[in-house]
């Protein structure tokens, strides 16, 4: 029972990692387009936060991938 539960959680977290990564990539792309279109740049601290968000997401994705190595799907 526990194994099935953990496998479901693994799959859910990996789906989140994948979808979140794609969403963030598209978000930043669209944000740059809006900045150019409106000719208004975001403050640098928000860009730093956004970069931190992307790095954080990469770490999370690697973490989830490592979970599959530690606990392979059954």
């Amino acid at each position: 029972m526990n194994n099935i539960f953990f496998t479901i959680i693994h799959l859910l977290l990996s789906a989140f990692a994948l979808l979140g990564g794609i969403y963030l990539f598209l978000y930043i792309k669209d944000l740059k387009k809006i900045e150019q279109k409106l000719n208004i740049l975001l403050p640098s601290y928000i860009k730093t936060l956004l970069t931190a968000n992307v790095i954080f997401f990469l770490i999370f994705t690697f973490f989830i991938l490592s979970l599959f190595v530690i606990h392979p799907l059954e």
Partner: protein
Amino acid sequence: MQESKGELTTAKLATFLTLPGEQLMIAKRQHWFILAVPMIGTVFFAFFINALILLTFFIAFPSFILLIGSILLTVNIVLHCVIKEFVDWYFHFYIVTNRKILEINYSPLSKQTINDVFLDQVRCTEIDIRTKGVIQEMFDMGDIIITFDRPTHEEEFILSGLHDPKTTGTFLGDMLETIMPTTTSVWYKQRNNPSRFQFVEEIFPKIAGNL
């Protein structure tokens, strides 16, 4: 004086000044308090979700790795939500020029709205300033409601959640009074006749001695 980076200036908004002789009068974002409320809400919601995760992976189904993974994911999502709220607020502003009123509201991947009113095509009948509640009064924020052609169309343009609405509203009133067309014409269309008629004279002329 050095201008701040986020300030909306004529140079930055030159792309919106498209009409001949157009001059920027007001360019304003919403009050920062509008941004603070959803941000605080998001952080509190994150605490609640993290408490649930702790309960699940610490007591119900003990797993240290899944606990760390879930908390990392929650923190990541909350960080993104906070950034998104700021970006949405940053790209939502009102521009008033001597030729038009614009509302620009951009949100990456979800919304792109430009709502404008050409001042030479409408007749402004009312400017209302609305401050609701103690919090809005404390932070000096409120809405400015500009009504165009109320007798015929009841079109309203609402500049919501602005800082110092009284000064802005008074300035707008004075400005619109000077730049609006002076003819007070009323348009209407007869049911059986497709052509339009326009009254330019007073409908109820004053009679001497009768108030």
